[in-house]
């Protein structure tokens, strides 16, 4: 049973299955050319802010997410695993890809 993820910037929603990161599931939206980054918590491209809901997290680089940010839900989507339905805002370099109209490369 998956959870629902809501992207506040665009109003889009997608499903995320247990064990899947917010980023990996987001890629199924099919934004061509998303520079989704390293998928390892190292590069900082996929930074988001969790505005509603709970996530568990894996190790992510302090070069991109401070302890304060992490505490208030600013995270790297590749290392965030939703525990409930979640709403998020896109903060990082990924924003221009996620937020442009679907279908445009």
């Amino acid at each position, binding site marked *: 049973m998956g959870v629902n993820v809501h992207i506040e910037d665009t109003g889009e929603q997608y499903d995320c299955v247990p064990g899947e990161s917010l980023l990996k599931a987001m890629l199924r939206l099919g934004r061509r*050319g998303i*520079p*989704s*980054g*390293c*998928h*390892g*918590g*190292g*590069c900082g*491209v996929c930074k988001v802010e969790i505005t509603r809901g709970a996530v568990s997290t894996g*190790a*992510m*680089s*302090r*070069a*991109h997410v401070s302890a304060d940010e992490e505490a208030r839900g600013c995270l790297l989507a590749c290392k965030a695993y939703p525990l409930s339905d979640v709403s998020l805002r896109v903060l990082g*370099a990924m924003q221009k890809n996620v937020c442009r109209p679907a279908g445009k490369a």
Partner: protein
Amino acid sequence: MALTGVLRPGHAQLRVLNLEEGVHHYRDVLGMVETGRDGQGRVYLKCWDERDHNSLVLREADRAGIDFVGFKVLDKATLDRLESDLRAYGLATERIPAGEMLATGERVRFLLPSGHFIELYAEKQAVGNGLQVLNPAPWTKASENGIAPVRLDHCLLYGPNVAEVQKIFCEVLGFYLVERVLTPDGAGNVAIWMSCSHKVHDIAFVEHPEPGKLHHLSFLLESWEEVLRAADIMAMNKVSVDIGPTRHGVTRGCTIYAWDPSGNRFETFMGGYQPYPDYEPTTWTFDGLGAGGGLDYPQRKLHESFLSVVT
């Protein structure tokens, strides 16, 4: 002997967010040989066909990236001469005592204007490649473990002041320029590939506003077949792949770019050509890097991750 001065990239120290995940990746998936752990908790590895004790050091840290790259030089006299040449050029150098890294002699460290620490050293314990020196077999059990590259080949680093970096490598350390990509206005270089040997690159740089960044550490395979097999092994182990398998126009190398569990990009690579110092450097326009196939010759596009995803 023709090959003197700086011999080759001999070691690199990477920061990983979780040490054992990093060790699993580089030892069990990439297929390097673990050769030691030190009092700081760092893990040392080498590629199977390398003869010195280590070429990769993993250090657990709260951020990913690269601590330093070390080049082996011919002998201690060469180390002393290059240190004095670096100082005469105006760079500060620091001596790190023998033994600070396992099985490694004294190192001369300096900071490039791109924000990267480079080291030179003359001594690292030879542990061999697992084959006898007299009448050896062509391969060994370690050569069949994981992707099993034969050596650490080169690295690509991102930072500012690439023109100044090129002068240091070419005018002080005896490297030569093999290929370059021009800036969009054609007035300078946005990327440079330099060799201290007969290899198509021993180190490369891309101009980038943030200092000290790693684009990738590259490991050499011996055939295209092995690059495809590396892709299979990456998929079996759920490694995140960036680009490839494909061929770079730049250097003509056949490649996969992928990421370790901490997001440090690594490359499994074969081919290229064998340049000499008297060759005219190959030049790519900025458009040539993307539409001209410099980065990805079959796909002929500038993958967005190439310029934006670094650690």
